[in-house]
């Protein structure tokens, strides 16, 4: 049943969902890849982003993407606060990152329960004119519901890449990841830089959440399904590499899509994680890791 049509569509679908996965994983790429903070609560911040987009969409009919961008500065501040607390409780005392994992697990559940209490547990969807519409280019059909998140994911990755490579604070973040003592010697405060980076990671969750609710309905506990995926993508791409995260997300997306189409959807995630194990066995630092 190997038809070219189906094959092309599967590749395209995989790339589209890969762009979305990249958007969700960017935050982890920054906080875990660069700062070594095992922020396992990141997916629940994505869900929080989905709910804030939903709130604006229900109340004012705002496009979810606009809502995601509007709330990004708020999420930034939340990230700053979370990092300050984390730093004061764990990093300053020299605890290993794995100790902080417990803190983030707790944060995950607290935010999840808060969402359940505030919004209830029914599935929420948003309305936008492009949801349900698709465009056809030859044999390939592309749904806007998946195209928009992919494009935004690519833009976010590119923007973050430029920020980290070209701006002072961006390079300071890369610097703190490499050697925070050296950074102190050139006059930047590593703690301030790390706070900024963590806030940035959480800010991406606001936009990623808006993209999530475009694709599928959300309820407070669905974040847990993403924990495995986002860490797998970050590790596969290589810790510390934003481009690596995007590449890994695309690879995983295409692997899932091809398996779903030709072999059977049950195997999709097994294939993705199998790929991860294979790559790590050959290249433990990940595809583009330091």
């Amino acid at each position, binding site marked *: 049943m190997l038809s070219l049509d189906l094959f092309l569509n599967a590749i395209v679908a995989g790339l589209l969902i890969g762009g979305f996965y990249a958007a969700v994983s960017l935050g982890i790429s920054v906080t875990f890849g660069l700062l070594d903070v095992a922020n396992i609560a990141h997916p629940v911040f994505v869900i929080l982003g989905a709910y804030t987009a939903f709130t604006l969409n229900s109340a004012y009919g705002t496009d979810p993407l606009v809502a995601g961008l509007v709330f990004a500065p708020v999420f930034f501040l939340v990230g700053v606060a979370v990092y300050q607390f984390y730093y004061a409780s764990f990093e300053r005392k020299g605890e290993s990152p794995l100790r902080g994992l417990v803190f983030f697990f707790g944060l995950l559940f607290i935010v999840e329960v808060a969402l359940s209490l505030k919004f209830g547990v029914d599935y929420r969807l948003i309305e936008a004119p492009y949801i349900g519409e698709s465009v056809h280019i030859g044999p390939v059909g592309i749904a806007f519901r998946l195209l928009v998140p992919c494009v935004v994911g690519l833009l976010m990755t590119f923007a973050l890449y430029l920020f980290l490579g070209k701006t002072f604070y961006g390079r300071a973040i890369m610097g703190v990841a490499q050697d925070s003592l050296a950074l102190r010697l050139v006059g930047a405060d590593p703690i301030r830089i790390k706070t900024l980076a963590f806030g940035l990671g959480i800010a991406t969750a606001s936009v990623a959440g808006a993209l999530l609710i475009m694709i*599928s309905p959300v309820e407070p506990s669905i974040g847990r399904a993403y924990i495995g995926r986002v860490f797998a993508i970050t590790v596969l791409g290589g810790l510390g590499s934003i481009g690596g995260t995007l590449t890994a997300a695309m690879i995983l997306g295409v692997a899932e899509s091809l398996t779903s189409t030709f072999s059977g959807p049950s195997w999709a995630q097994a294939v993705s994680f199998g790929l991860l194990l294979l790559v790590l066995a050959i290249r433990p630092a990940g595809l583009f890791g330091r």
Partner: protein
Amino acid sequence: MMRPLIRTRRRIGAASAPVIARSRTGGAARVSTWTRTALAGALVAAVALLVGGSAMAQGAKPIKIGFGMALTGGLAGNGKAALLAMQIWRDDVNKKGGLLGRPVEFVYYDDQTNPATVPGIYTKLLDVDKVDLVVSGYGTNLIAPAMPLVMERKLLFMGLFGLANNEKYKYPRYFQIAPGGPDPAGAFSEGFFELAAKQSPRPKTAALVGADAEFPQTALVGARHHAKRLGFQVVYDKTYPPTTVDYTPIVRAIKATNPDVVFVASYPPDSTGMVLAASEVGLEPKMFGGGMVGLHFTALLTKLGAKLNGIVDYGFWVPEPTMKFPGIEAFLQKYQPEAVKAGVDPLGFYLPPWAYAMMQVLGQAVEGTKGLDQQKLAEYIHAQEFDTVVGKVKFGADGEWAKSRTVTMQFQNIKGSDADQFRQAGKQVVVYPDELKSGKLIYPYSAARK
């Protein structure tokens, strides 16, 4: 700096000497022997009073009904609505003086739609909370883990929307309120395939798809059976992980096999995903639907709106003229304002009437046997026919309905996303069986989408 929790130093042979206890706050308290004796005596007296008192106040002692319920997680939208309906029943019963003259109380915990929590919850309910009766949480996946425990303790167990949970055990004290009948797995798909087989020209090929979970897998077993029995050729038969994000590749693969009918067994997130993907990919078989849970929820009815038109789904109760059982309107009028306040499904057509009916059966059995003996209750429920808000209920030997009353319905003429349109008849039309039919099937699927 934290002190060690409690450190007591007792000098041997100095029984009358004061006992010094160091508490966490660092203070030291002297507790004399006289005080200890007085405290012990008071404790004994209190216990005696309680035991004696409870014997006297037996009439006011509440009947405790215990259960787990999905209050968070994927099925919580329904679970919370069911809880509300059960609480309405409890309040109705208590207003009339309770059961056997005793007030009814609930003891319940959130099972988080996570089957792993269920054995622990029911053990706590039975051993710590010492409930008198147990009923189930919502859904096949959450009933299954409780079965071994209730069977071991020989308890009566009322099941709320479990698909074939008792098929292997044939436990005589289990009763399930959804009208699946003696072949519940088949009931989900019987109407779908029977209707398909009656169409002319007769559709030949079928695609079957569902999530990797207990309910969808069981429903698919029934679907395969009916498809084979009626001579359909199955061209696609695969399952997907419930955490799938994008259903487009799956729908494309189905479309590539060119099936005449597509049967989907899914839970709310995947039901939505499949409907959206089918709409985008342009999957238009002659009949589309199956056992798609969640499409009846108000939130999805309103958001998916016209995209639902033409889908043939199962149903238990819909607001059609052929299903106006005595008491159902009164129940919905009580339920709907409370639901809005509680932030749960405001229409309440899908699960709440059944949760209420389940408790009605239990309550009538307690009154009928004049007691809480699990064996007598089970025998009574097997023997009687009950009058409930969902009509007359009669159970068979395996605890399912003696005769199936699962209907097959089709979404028709839905326009836009206004929730009120669903209060009237004509949007969720019953197309099978003939006894409850309230409209005609629009075939093929594409005709209903115009």
